[in-house]
């Protein structure tokens, strides 16, 4: 069985736009038959949430990346999830990286 990834989507508000980003990510992952658990967090809460569950990927949907994310976690700039343009490339690159890491 393939590993189920844990992905954090982070932005400033964890409300309106984050749910749009989350929905877009889910759709893109479903289209590739990838099963993943996605959580939305506010950027300020990231350090604590990363310690708590250790996600495979952190996607920064909006704004600056906080300096304090551990190096072994993949950080992706998620602007495509905000704009709607370039989502396929973002998701493909992310999955390639994750597979290589396991392999």
């Amino acid at each position, binding site marked *: 069985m393939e590993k189920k990834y844990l992905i954090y989507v982070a932005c400033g*508000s964890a409300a309106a736009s984050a*749910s749009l980003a989350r929905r877009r990510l889910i759709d893109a992952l479903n289209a590739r038959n990838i099963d993943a658990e996605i959580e939305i967090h506010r950027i*300020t809460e990231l350090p604590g949430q990363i310690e708590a569950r250790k996600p495979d990927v952190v996607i920064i949907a909006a704004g600056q990346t906080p300096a304090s994310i551990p190096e072994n976690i993949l950080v992706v700039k998620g602007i495509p999830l905000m704009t709607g*343009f370039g989502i396929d490339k973002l998701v493909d690159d992310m999955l390639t990286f994750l597979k290589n890491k396991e392999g």
Partner: protein
Amino acid sequence: MQFVQSILNLGPTIMMPIVLFIMALIFRQPVGKSLRHSILVGVAFIGINAVLGAVLSTIGPAIQALGQAMGIEALGTDIGWGLASAITWSFSWAGLIIPVGFVINWIVLLLGWTKIFDADIWNYWHWTFTAAMTYIWTKNLYLAFSLAIVVEIITLKLGDWTSPVTQKYFDIPGTALPHTETVNLAPFNFAIEKAFLSKIPGLQKSKLDPESIQKKVGFWGEPMMLGLYIGVILGVLVWLVAGQPATIILQMGIAVPAMIYLEGRMIGILIDGLMPIVDGVRDVFQKSERFKGREILIGIDAGPIGLANPTSVVVGMVGMVIYLLLTLLFPSFFKIMPLADLAIVPIYYMFAAAASKGNLVKTLINGTITSVLVLAVTSSFAQPLTEAAKLVNYALPAGMLLVSSVDVGAHILPWLIVMPVVGIVTGQPTMIIAPAIIGVLWVLCWIYAHDMPQKLADELEKEK
């Protein structure tokens, strides 16, 4: 025709899903996806109405009583941007703004007047709001749509103008922020920085690091927790000043965070429901060959960008206190108690933050100057917004005389355009004076500060 009218009369809960479903099909989205998301929109409207009824029956009368104890006949409540936008989406013609806004954006792009394709469909509500306010005062739908289009085009131009610095400072390459209620403060913010703040020697070096402050604040600064503090503070005031039982402190301490938290959730559902339209608009744009090879910036929502910017967030927390104090000190002038939108005050400081490249003190001074205007416009739009809420049958509790939202008040550009036109059309010259003076000042600031966004972007590039 009678059938159509009777559906329109059923209100947004029924009408919006139908309108959006048809629109999604026109944009060639799959039937199943369109249906599912359209239903979500109806669900969201029911949720919004439920939240409104549940929290306002506590908050509204308490604020009203506080106002009366302070000698103000009607102290209104800030119901938040979510509810305010839901009210403006509730007009039978509101959904039309989406295709109209899209076509106008397309034309303006073709003419080469803008580089922006605005993919932030949800925030087309800024133009809907412009139309709604015009409509309430004039009942003229053509005029309402015309002014909405004018506001859209100017907002796109503001997005173009600010894009060099917003891409660099907020780290969002390839995008622009044609987001009316934030970017329309930029002419003032950039002019204030250029004319005054950049010339005061003591202010240029700030030792405070916003990121470490923000980290220390942690979850104590999340919107729901802010609601708790605001609710408790106002509850104490209602108890002491208006002489209500002390239990009001506990009631407000739950009702205000509930309003902020639940409103955010309901709008999340509504935005999820708009997905097919958002995707449809994007697909049409993506498939078009017309703009290939041209530099295009994608317009996105400025809200989450501002709320992710440490300087704006840290300064915004001080800003919330300033908003409350200003209203408590001058209630007869500001007329609306800031409440739900206090959680997003940081976004009204984000262009002040960009203008100073993140200098905390300069951001606070600059953003507070423009915030006074935001509060004044909040009260100026209160009466038509309240009327709109009643017109579309929102469940305002009995005895609630006035509602508005700070975010509505941040719509400075719509205010500058709508007020003078309405004043002329309805023969109320007194409506024209303040917006005309501020409008001239706004234009002069834009001209004076026209070089700022590029200059700041160049400086940020060098500092890297």
